[in-house]
């Protein structure tokens, strides 16, 4: 039996939609910074944070204590905080005789004040009595109140086993997670374990169910999985069956699925990502998706639940559980108190004994005693908290005089306030930081340079570029620019000795064009290069082209698995695939192949395949066949000629055998026209057309406003990090290059920009690059701050005399940056440039170093505009700098692209840091010290846990306190208001980010000298920056 098609697809889609809140998890070889609440970005920030709290049980704001620390350091504007409180109180009921503003400000800002958890049984009359030291009024708690409290913990969508755990302390959830993790480790292993799970190519669910049905361990535990699996052969059918067996109404399925998927959101996120990653080697060979995963979870969950229910006689469907609460509200309440961890410690023993006895009479006798104690406890604790608060606020008398009705109002206000408080702190912190940036900006018109600078350098917008740019500008005549580190060229790269494509661009785009790296042995001049290329085509096995155009099945005949181990053994046996930026003897193939070249490649591949076929299928020696025979066989297979072949005559094949062999050539060895067409299409992906190349260079230069005054050297500086024994190494690489080193994109753009034909085309577009300008790719190592020049062999001789000066300048900047950075890594670290630099070098190669560099920690701002705005400021490596000159962008198209690409990547990085900081245990990955590599793609804490997502404690915390200051990305655009606003509204996802408060957006209009801040759902114009200068705030704090 199986579900009807439409129904099956419906279940599948429901799972897909239910899983959208789960953040993706990329294999850590290419760590992608992303917002863990990306799936909730359609909601306003505050709502999404609340939803994240519900789904992931994670905190969304820093605790009050840390914020109070910021306040004391002058990082939070108390004025803004007071405004936020006033805004909160507006529209809420007054309480006569009580200064609520003062009370709430005291609660916020006075260290050590807390009002404790909200009472569940005690009401305002009880608290009132406790406040005046009187006895609590006597009353009985109604059974319906108790039932309601239990039911509040059984919301729609909560899996029945979780409810059973809460009521009976069964621990099914933990066992289930453990079984699921073990299944995942078996299936998803990427070569770490010795034993491989059988049948993985059939997919996760099929492979798992085949193994699970024979799993003796599960059988011995009394889990009758076979019975459940027999109901339907498809995972969709199984999901539907389990839902019905548990009695979950269909409108709650989605919520139920989401709840199940969030339980191990690291694994679920990995499977979600993997299912969509069509180029991922392991996903292609061993497919899996969320439907498979959910089906496994549900089957195991149901089997565990049934086993427990049977053994202990427990209710286990939703209806049974509901009836249980209805019939035994008192017992259910006590169970919930005990197993849910809410029990009063000194009653725990008595309650446990009574529940274990199972005697209704005993439980009934205990209940009123417990309820009275709990109510008393809550009332006294609450009263003490309120009293302490009021005393600190100087409102003790007012508090004592409050009537019970007023206390009810106050309790409501306080509860809402404590929910809203985190956001108020956040806004006050952001306001201060925005002010700091804004007051430092130079809004005067830019001064024209008298002569061209000695060198111009384009750095990635990455916050770590700011430091080295600042120092470079100081040590000599250098002009620097910020541009997304893939330089606007999305590249799918196949490196030397690599069979696989690496996507080098932001993950929101997928590159259409492939760039190949080819070794050049002899000479670098163009003619030799082309001929060596031809040679490569003929040497089939050594060529990266063969696997590239040899799609799967055929490739295997050669032992050429395109994404497989044979071609990339190093890449798969090492923790992570590093691109080798330091290989001097290679060139990039980035022009389109001509039709003739492509034809010749396919022909030579077909010839090689025919030889292979003849040897394998007919046992004929290679030496016995001539080129003519091969040509004839090829023509016959392609249908270009008919009739018997010379080959058949020579080796005495009868007509039937010959036809069979030709058929085999067509179907197995794929010598046919359709296949050749596919290969042609694949070859068509190699390289860029001249127009494309022209467009890349033109757009890159225009978008940063560099259209004239070109220097002799224009350095394109990609970046990456180097560290040892660090699963998170990739997190320190270039986010705009998909978590890889940025050097390839730099090489690509430099090679293009140096081409005479491209220069000619640019001149026609109005960008005249002088003949003596040379684009040089370079690599910025962010761990050591070194800048290394690449492709120097191509440098024109005329430039050689300047290389020394350039090298000295770069070296000085390197050391000065290190001197600024090292003290932040180690207390007392050297500030002497030379020693600091040596220290940085050591960090890069120290096997035991858990924090080789701070990476993007402490990032908070994003400035889109000309460099002179921020040139005078020390931004401490905390701000993304995107060069942009609105005067070169009258229609706002360049700005739109900056917003859609770089800003979105910046926001992901920012949010990753934000959430990893505010709740490192849930959104972050905890301490690296306890990490174990799982299956070669992720890390677990200990030897069995969820895959840890987000950033480790060592990246965002220092000595257990936040090092990163979590703020939303504070974005400034320097452009006329109308232009910038239009661009923001034109890019729907960015518009949503701004309107929903995921980034704070300000526009600085240089034409009118006004500021425009998006706040409270609209644009607010200010003649000057609306906020106190930092010094003033610091004074108040002091």
């Amino acid at each position, binding site marked *: 039996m199986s579900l009807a098609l*439409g129904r*099956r697809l419906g279940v*599948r889609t429901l799972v897909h*939609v239910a899983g959208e809140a789960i953040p993706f998890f990329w294999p850590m070889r290419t760590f992608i910074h992303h917002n863990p609440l990306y799936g909730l970005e359609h909601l306003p920030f505050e709502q999404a944070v609340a939803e994240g709290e519900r789904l992931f049980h994670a905190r969304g704001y820093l605790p009050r204590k840390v914020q109070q620390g910021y306040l004391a350091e002058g990082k939070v504007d108390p004025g803004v905080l007071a405004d936020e409180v006033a805004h909160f109180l507006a529209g809420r009921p007054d309480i006569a005789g009580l200064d609520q503003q003062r009370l709430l400000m005291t609660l916020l800002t006075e260290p050590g004040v807390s009002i404790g958890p909200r009472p569940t049984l005690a009401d305002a009359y009880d608290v009132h009595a406790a406040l005046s030291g009187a006895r609590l009024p006597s009353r009985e708690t109604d059974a319906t109140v108790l039932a309601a409290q239990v039911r509040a913990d059984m919301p729609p969508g909560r899996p029945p086993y979780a409810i059973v755990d809460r009521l009976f302390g069964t621990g099914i959830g933990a066992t289930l997670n453990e079984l699921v993790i073990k299944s995942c480790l078996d299936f998803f292993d990427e070569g770490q374990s010795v034993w491989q799970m059988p049948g993985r190519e059939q997919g996760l669910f099929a492979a798992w169910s085949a193994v699970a049905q024979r799993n003796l361990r599960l059988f011995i535990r009394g889990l009758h999985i076979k019975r459940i699996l027999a109901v339907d052969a498809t995972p969709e059918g199984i999901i539907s069956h389990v839902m019905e067996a548990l009695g979950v109404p269909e409108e709650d399925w989605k919520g139920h699925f989401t709840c199940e998927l969030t339980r191990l959101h690291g694994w679920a996120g990995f499977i979600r990502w993997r299912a969509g990653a069509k180029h991922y080697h392991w996903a292609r060979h061993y497919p899996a998706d969320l439907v498979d995963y959910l089906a496994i979870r549900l089957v195991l969950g149901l089997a565990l639940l049934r086993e427990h229910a049977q053994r202990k006689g427990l209710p286990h469907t939703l209806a049974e559980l509901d009836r249980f609460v209805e019939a035994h509200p008192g017992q259910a309440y006590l169970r919930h108190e005990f197993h849910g961890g809410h029990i009063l410690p000194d009653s725990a023993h008595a309650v446990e004994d009574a529940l274990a006895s199972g005697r209704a009479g005993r439980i009934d006798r205990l209940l009123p005693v417990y309820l009275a104690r709990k109510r008393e406890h809550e009332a006294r604790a609450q009263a003490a908290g309120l009293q302490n608060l009021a005393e600190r606020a100087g409102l003790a008398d007012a508090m004592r005089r409050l009537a019970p009705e007023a206390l009810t109002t106050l309790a409501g206000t306080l509860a809402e306030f404590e929910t809203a408080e985190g956001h108020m702190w956040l806004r006050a912190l952001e306001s201060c930081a925005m002010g700091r940036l804004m007051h430092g900006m130079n809004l005067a018109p830019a001064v024209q340079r008298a002569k061209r600078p000695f060198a111009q350098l384009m750095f990635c917008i990455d916050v770590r570029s700011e430091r080295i740019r600042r120092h470079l500008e100081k040590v000599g005549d250098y002009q620097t620019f910020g541009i997304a580190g893939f330089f606007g060229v999305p590249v799918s790269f196949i490196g030397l000795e690599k069979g696989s494509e690496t996507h080098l661009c*932001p993950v929101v*785009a997928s590159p259409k064009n492939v760039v190949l790296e080819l070794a050049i042995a002899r000479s670098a001049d163009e003619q030799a290069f082309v001929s060596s290329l031809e040679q490569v085509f003929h040497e089939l096995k050594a060529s990266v082209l063969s696997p590239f155009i040899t799609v799967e099945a055929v490739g295997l005949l050669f032992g050429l698995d395109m994404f497989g181990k044979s071609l990339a053994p190093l890449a798969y046996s090492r923790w992570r695939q590093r691109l080798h930026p330091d290989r001097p003897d290679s060139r990039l193939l980035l022009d389109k192949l001509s039709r003739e070249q492509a034809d010749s490649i396919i022909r030579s591949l077909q010839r090689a395949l025919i030889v292979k076929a003849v040897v394998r299928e007919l046992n004929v020696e290679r030496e016995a066949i001539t080129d003519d025979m091969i040509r004839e066989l090829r023509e016959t297979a392609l249908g270009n000629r008919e009739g018997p072949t010379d080959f058949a005559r020579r080796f005495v094949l009868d007509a039937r055998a010959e036809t069979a062999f030709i058929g085999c050539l067509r179907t197995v060895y794929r010598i046919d026209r359709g296949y050749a067409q596919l290969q042609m299409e694949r070859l068509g992906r190699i390289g860029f057309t001249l127009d494309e190349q022209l467009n890349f260079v033109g757009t890159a230069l225009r978008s940063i406003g560099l259209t004239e005054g070109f220097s002799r050297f224009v350095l394109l500086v990609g970046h990456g990090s180097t560290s040892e024994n660090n699963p998170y190494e990739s997190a320190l690489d270039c986010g705009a290059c998909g978590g890889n080193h940025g050097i390839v994109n730099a090489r690509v753009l430099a090679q293009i920009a140096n081409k005479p034909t491209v220069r000619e085309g640019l001149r026609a577009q109005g960008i005249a690059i002088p003949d003596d300008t040379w684009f040089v790719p370079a690599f910025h190592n962010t761990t050591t701050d070194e800048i290394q020049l690449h492709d120097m062999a191509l440098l024109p001789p005329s430039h050689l005399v300047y290389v020394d000066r350039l090298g000295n300048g770069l070296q000085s900047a390197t050391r000065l940056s290190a001197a600024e950075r090292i003290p932040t890594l180690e207390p007392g670290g050297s500030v002497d440039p030379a020693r600091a630099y040596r220290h940085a070098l050591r960090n890069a190669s120290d096997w035991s170093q858990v924090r080789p560099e701070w990476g993007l920690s402490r990032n908070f701002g994003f400035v889109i505009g000309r460099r002179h705005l921020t040139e005078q400021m020390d931004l401490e490596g905390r701000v993304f700098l995107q060069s942009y000159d609105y005067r070169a962008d009258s229609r706002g198209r360049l700005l739109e692209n900056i917003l*859609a690409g770089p800003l979105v990547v910046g926001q992901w990085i920012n949010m990753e840091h934000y959430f990893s900081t505010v709740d490192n245990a849930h959104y972050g990955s905890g301490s690296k010290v306890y990490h174990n590599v799982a299956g070669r793609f992720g890390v677990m804490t200990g030897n069995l846990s969820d895959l840890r997502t987000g950033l480790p404690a060592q990246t965002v915390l220092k000595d257990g306190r936040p090092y990163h200051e979590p703020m939303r990305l504070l974005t400034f655009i320097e452009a006329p208001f109308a232009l910038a606003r239009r661009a923001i509204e034109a890019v*729907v996802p960015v518009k949503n980010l701004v309107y929903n408060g995921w980034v704070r957006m300000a526009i600085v209009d240089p034409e009118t000298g006004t500021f425009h801040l998006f706040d409270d759902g609209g644009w607010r114009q200010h003649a000057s920056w609306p906020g106190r200068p930092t010094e003033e705030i610091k004074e108040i704090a002091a």
Partner: protein
Amino acid sequence: MKNLNFSPLKKLEIILEGAHQEFATDLLDRAGVSGYTIVNNLSGKGRHGFHEGHLMFNEEAVLIMIIVAVPEDLVKPILEGYAPFFSEHTGVVFISDIQVTRLVKFTS
């Protein structure tokens, strides 16, 4: 142009955000359709305002259209399959009657 046989089919035009392309085509594959056409970078106006179709570095944010021709009996299962998706996301499906000459290309 003699002997042309026209066979009736249904055409679905599915418009959704590029980020969901994988999901949408996977569902069609599972429904057993034999092929489809994808048009990228759509511009146009809907309930969420005007969508630009020219973003260079972000393909997930632009709208795409998937065009697929299917036998009538597949229309309902496909729509049933998409239903939970469109109750959460922007997008539309247009259904129209079409005729094709080479039916064999559209049946699997």
